[in-house]
């Protein structure tokens, strides 16, 4: 199958997932038959405003968050040469969550806005994890990296949990946000996310060659005249920024960055130039499907997106961890 056909199939799958995410819901007057009409024609009906004001923002945010997180995961796996790496395993997700939790609890500590706080948290957590595991020098012990990341994550989450105990109203807010409940997002939140996704995609594509060379090993990389440290630094920074932006908008969605690059590698091979667009599409598709499921699991009640992703991703991580013997 040629590359173009595979991309087209994947894009079609993403569109179907997006339609599902738009159509599924407790209203009976929104269905596959009239969804396009409702989206593009303003007939002033309640169904129209449900689709445009409530469901569309959520679908957009789900897709964009998925793309961002998947790209971040791919960058981290390339940078660490570790198939288990991803933003939730390395504690970056939880660090971003801590940044947001601090900003929400102590507004006077807020720097610029929530996005920036989340990105600062993500960078700090990533830096800590990499430092513990041996720095960006290339002698990264793969299992130690994961354990360091999990510990940094546990530490950050203990701090986030601490904010639960401060005040009841705050705890409800933080809890719904930690479980990545995106049912109340606004259209305005999709704009910045789209910008980050576009920048992330472009930056990833620029780094693709570097990622490919990095996968050959540090020696080969230096032999080809590419400084591996530079690619590593830029890749990790990119991952932290994409994660921070997503977490600020939707909360810490776990495991997307782990699962999507793995699945895409099976279908698109190891070349990062081909992989990057596929991973962005795949991430969007997976989270859109998870969003659709989040409305179906306990219909008509909703289950937050983060919970669905954790239920899918955690068993996958276990299988990957068991099979990780070869890499160690």
């Amino acid at each position, binding site marked *: 199958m040629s590359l173009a056909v595979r991309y087209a199939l994947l894009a079609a799958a993403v569109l179907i997932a997006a339609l599902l995410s738009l159509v599924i819901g407790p209203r009976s007057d929104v269905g596959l038959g009239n969804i396009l009409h409702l989206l593009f024609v303003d007939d002033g009906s309640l169904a129209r405003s449900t689709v445009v004001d409530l469901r569309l923002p959520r679908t957009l945010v789900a897709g964009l968050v998925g793309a961002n997180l998947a790209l971040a995961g791919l960058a981290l796996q390339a940078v660490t040469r570790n198939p*288990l790496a991803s933003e939730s395993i390395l504690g970056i997700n939880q660090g971003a969550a801590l940044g947001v939790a601090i900003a929400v609890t102590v507004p006077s500590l807020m720097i610029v806005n929530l996005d920036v706080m989340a990105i600062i948290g993500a960078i700090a957590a990533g830096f800590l994890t990499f430092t*513990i595991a041996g720095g960006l020098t290339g002698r990264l*012990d793969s*299992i*130690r990296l*994961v*354990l*360091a990341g*999990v*510990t*940094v994550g*546990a*530490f950050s989450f*203990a*701090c986030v*949990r*601490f904010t*639960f*105990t*401060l005040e009841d109203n705050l705890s*409800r807010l933080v*809890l719904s946000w930690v*479980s990545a409940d995106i049912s109340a997002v606004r259209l305005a939140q999709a704009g910045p996310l789209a910008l980050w996704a576009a920048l992330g995609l472009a930056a990833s594509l620029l780094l693709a060659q570097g990622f490919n060379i990095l996968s050959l090993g540090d020696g080969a990389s230096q032999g080809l005249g590419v400084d591996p440290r530079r690619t590593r630094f830029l890749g990790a920074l990119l991952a932290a920024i994409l994660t921070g932006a997503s977490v600020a908008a939707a909360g810490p969605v776990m495991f997307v960055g782990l699962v999507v690059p793995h699945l895409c590698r099976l279908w698109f091979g190891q070349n990062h130039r081909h992989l990057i667009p596929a991973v962005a599409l795949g991430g969007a598709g997976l989270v859109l499907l998870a969003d659709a499921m989040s409305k179906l699991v*306990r219909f008509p*009640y909703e*289950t*937050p997106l*983060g*919970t669905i992703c*954790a*239920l899918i*991703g*955690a*068993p996958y*991580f*276990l299988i*990957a*961890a*068991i099979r*990780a*013997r070869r890499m*160690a």
Partner: protein
Amino acid sequence: MTGTATVALRRHRDRRALLLIGGAAVLTLLAALWSLGVGAVAIPVDVIVNTLFNLDGEKQTYIIMRSRLPRIVLALMAGGALALSGTIIQAVIRNPLASPGIIGINSGAALFAVGMTILLPTVPQTWLPLAASLGGLTAAGIVMLVAHRRLLSAAHLALIGVAVGFVFESGVDYFLITSSDAERSAPLIWLTGSLWGRTWDHVGMSLAPLAVLAGMAMVLAYRLDLITLGEATATGLGLDVGRQRLIMLSVATLLASVSVAVVGVMGFIGLMAPHIARHLIGGGHRLLLPLAMLVGMLLVTLADGVGRAIAPPIEVSAGILSALIGAPFFVYVMLTTASEQET
């Protein structure tokens, strides 16, 4: 070395060990006494003593006897149990990174306990230790099965444990999120490892099992010494390694699970206490087990007391505090063991 010198040395070591154990016991008692006094209502020491020993003078019977004393007794029990569990697990797996939390016991116990509270609300709470034990055994069973079938490095075993923990935790999250606000609040506080709102009932339902299990742990001390020598040596010395390992891990799992059932998830105590105790007293389990138990008691009592003392009337969960101290400790252990393995 001559016989008398050996005996003298052993006597010296025993005396030092007894001093350490006595010192730890005194410290734990002092910490418990201090912890009785702190909180939303600060109570001076003389009032505490008056209340405890029913002396004349000012008393605070309600707060101390109904609220603080049971939770401190529980803190002592849970801390001791987690520490014993961690000591046994580290000996059996011969892995300094191992602890009840890291091989998934905490999450397994938490899932079954939360599941029971939410799915079977009519079942009395006294069944919680049983449900938690089942969960702990399930999680530990999965981890040990994987570890048994492939010879794993210390770090890789920890990785599998973490992954199993993630699976069970995602289940816990699902239960919490899908339950109503009222059902959720109790398990939520409980899950962060809080001793808030504990009564004598909790003490009653866990005291007997924990006491029996602690006794079993002490009986296992000599066999734990043997098993740390390695499988071949232990077998050569007449130990049925496979069977003993199963018994030891079951005791350790049950100790941790029952304590999770009553105080919730308190990570890293089972990691820190054995390390601190081993650093003080060395590897012989006859002395290590009691000292580790005391250290565990001290840590949890302090975590609980400090959590109440930081900003009364707000309480910071003991589990959160122990994670804040324990996570850096885990990193420290990981870094030092990794450098040992390299040399």
